[in-house]
């Protein structure tokens, strides 16, 4: 089997991993070496599905000992198997890197023989790159659940970023679909990596040249749409991960059916791309806009509104905060206005120092007035000829057809009605979901 075949098989097996970022660390080549990294990350290409290609994303091996039902590399799947030798993979990385095809290496692996053996193979690859080639480019290594912590630690000294995939957002889903993994086997290495990062940061204060452990932090990913977990559960889990494990990123991947299994969506089911998109929008709101998961969704509204983005949805339900005046509102409040992003809010704060802003000026700053005009005033005035009602806002954001569907699915002006078991006759439109929650005492 030549390197062409191996690359094809092992790329194909790795493509469902989402993370392809090269951000979070700034460095340049050491003397006699090659490679640098930019904190903002660099995209080198974009695949036909529109995803950024920044790293050479491959598996070390797809000969996996585990049998996770959602995974294309599961033991019981009849698919060609291949493994890179550490030297082959290191050489390929350097040759791609020299030609500026990639920013570095993303190496993951199926469990080849045992977790420890797999981890040793990855360490050897990274050692060749770092020590023989003196490679300073970006390396993202996947921690193999179940590997010895000494090996994880060694891997972390060589890599820039590590990740442990949560894969499924709840313990029950894991039990069902990934019998060889458990919540513990996933969270243990994640906690271990976080502890080492913290230890390392105190070491670096004490010793000037303490080697860095995973300088770009750790990330994780979970599959959306393979199990009945709701957006609310996923977003809460995400928030918990950011807080508890200080993750740099949580990635979501819309489930793409790769196997026929009674427990999974049928083959040919379209991946829930819109849902994935809404989750990413909410993820951004958590990380950069000061929102909390409970503001965006609550037990009564477990799913994102497909018609409106989470921020706009929040604003429409909290019209008491608006309109706010762009010339006076603090930065944190500006961030909550639909149509104003981080860049826009920063520019507004900068620009209003020298002169007061009007709607024309806002447009030049890159504020999306189509959205923002319903939520702001400039010097106490609203935009000319504008009527601020929820209906007007919705009308401007959606087509006539979408608006109709939106109203059918979710009556907008009705508050979530208080459910009472004593008035069952007046609640003819109870949905199955409502009933279930009522019985389990969630309301």
């Amino acid at each position, binding site marked *: 089997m030549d390197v062409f075949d191996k690359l094809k098989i092992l790329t194909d097996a790795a493509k469902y991993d989402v993370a392809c970022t090269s951000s979070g660390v700034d460095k340049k080549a050491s003397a006699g070496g090659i490679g640098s990294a930019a904190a903002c990350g660099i995209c080198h290409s974009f695949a036909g599905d*529109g995803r950024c290609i920044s790293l050479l994303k491959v598996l070390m091996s797809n000969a996996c000992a585990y049998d996770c039902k959602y995974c294309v590399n599961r033991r019981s799947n009849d698919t060609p198997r291949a493994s890179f030798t550490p030297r082959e993979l290191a050489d390929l990385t350097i040759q791609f890197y020299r030609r500026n095809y990639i920013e570095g290496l993303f190496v993951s692996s199926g469990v080849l023989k045992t977790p420890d053996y797999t981890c040793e193979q990855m360490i050897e690859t990274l050692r060749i790159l770092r020590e023989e080639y003196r490679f300073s480019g970006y390396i993202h290594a996947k921690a193999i659940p179940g590997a010895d912590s000494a090996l994880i630690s060694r891997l972390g000294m060589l890599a820039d970023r590590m990740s442990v995939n949560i894969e499924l957002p709840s313990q029950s889903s894991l039990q069902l679909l990934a019998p060889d993994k458990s919540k513990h086997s996933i969270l243990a290495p994640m906690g271990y990596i976080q502890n080492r990062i913290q230890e390392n940061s105190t070491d670096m204060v004490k010793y000037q040249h303490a080697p860095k452990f995973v300088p770009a932090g750790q990330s994780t990913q979970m599959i959306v749409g393979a199990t009945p977990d709701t957006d609310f559960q996923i977003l809460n889990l995400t928030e918990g991960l950011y807080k508890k494990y200080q993750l740099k990123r949580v990635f979501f991947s819309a489930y793409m059916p790769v196997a026929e299994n009674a427990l999974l969506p049928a083959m040919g089911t379209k991946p829930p791309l819109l849902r994935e998109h809404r989750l990413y929008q909410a993820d951004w709101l958590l990380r950069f806009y000061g929102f909390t998961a409970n503001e965006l969704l609550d037990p009564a509204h477990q799913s994102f509104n497909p018609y409106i983005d989470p921020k706009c949805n929040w604003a429409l339900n909290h019209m008491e905060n608006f309109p706010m005046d762009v010339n006076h509102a603090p930065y944190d409040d500006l961030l909550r206005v639909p149509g104003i992003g981080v860049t826009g809010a920063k520019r507004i704060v900068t620009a209003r120092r020298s002169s007061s802003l009007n709607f024309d000026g806002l447009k030049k700053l890159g504020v999306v007035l189509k959205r923002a005009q319903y939520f702001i005033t400039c010097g106490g005035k609203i935009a000319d000829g504008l009527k601020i009602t929820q209906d007007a806002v919705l009308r401007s954001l959606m087509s006539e057809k979408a608006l109709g569907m939106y109203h059918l699915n979710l009556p907008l002006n009705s508050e979530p009605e208080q459910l009472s078991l004593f008035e069952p006759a007046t609640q003819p439109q109870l949905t199955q979901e409502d009933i279930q929650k009522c019985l389990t005492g969630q309301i």
Partner: protein
Amino acid sequence: MPDGSNLVYRYDGSFDGLLCCVFESYSKKEIPSDILPPDTLQTTLFPAKEIPTELEKSNRVLASIPQTMGDATLDFVRRAFLTYLPQKEWYILMFLRMGYRCGPSVMNMLADDVVNTLFKAVKHLNNETQLLKGFARFSVINNTLVAEIEPKNFVLPLLTRHFCERYPEERFFIYDTAHSMALIYQPYQYAIIPVDNFEMPEPDEEEASFRELWRLFYKTIEIQGRHNPKCRMSHMPKRYWKYLTEFGAPNKSARDNGPFKKISGDRTHLRQDFLLPPSGEPKARKED
């Protein structure tokens, strides 16, 4: 002060030359309606006033910018000069005149038309620089890395530091086909020189096989079920595809063995100080 509606400056195309126009504008108390680079066709009937480049004058202006407006403003103006904004010279003059009036806060006046136009142009320049850090594709030819790019803005000065830090031990050559300029580097020395008629040589067997491997990787990494050409196009506009290996850049026929062909201009300004931030100023563009 005359509004200069019938006055046009012509300068030599260098950053120093433009600064001399700023000097002239102040010393003669006049504002030209346009500042023309040397080889443009004149579109007005008014006579163009030739502004000679005198380093004594330009250095005075150069020193005054950080003093009155701060270092960030000078960096911004240098970048603005690299953009392909039509009439960038005139906008820079107007911007500097505002800067002399109101100091560093000129950088905050984002709602002003002149400032806004320049900010947009510089943003485009910065974006294009960032994209080309990723999209430049090297071929290994005679152990030298060779790349061709075709940017709208003159980005080579801004790419210099990035690639020098990335490949400190390599020899490389980045040819900007749009501006007929090239960045050349050998360990610890670089220069930006005018080059014309460069042709990418035929790849050898090893180079061809790595190109093929990359195309294979590119094809395989896509998840077919999520095919989304529109998304790809918005992240990677089609004008960059021409030189991307993954789309099978055509192998041009080789005329000679070496990677370099007919380099004009002198190389005396090879610099040792590449680790300093590259100066934002392009070498004179029209030396040929």
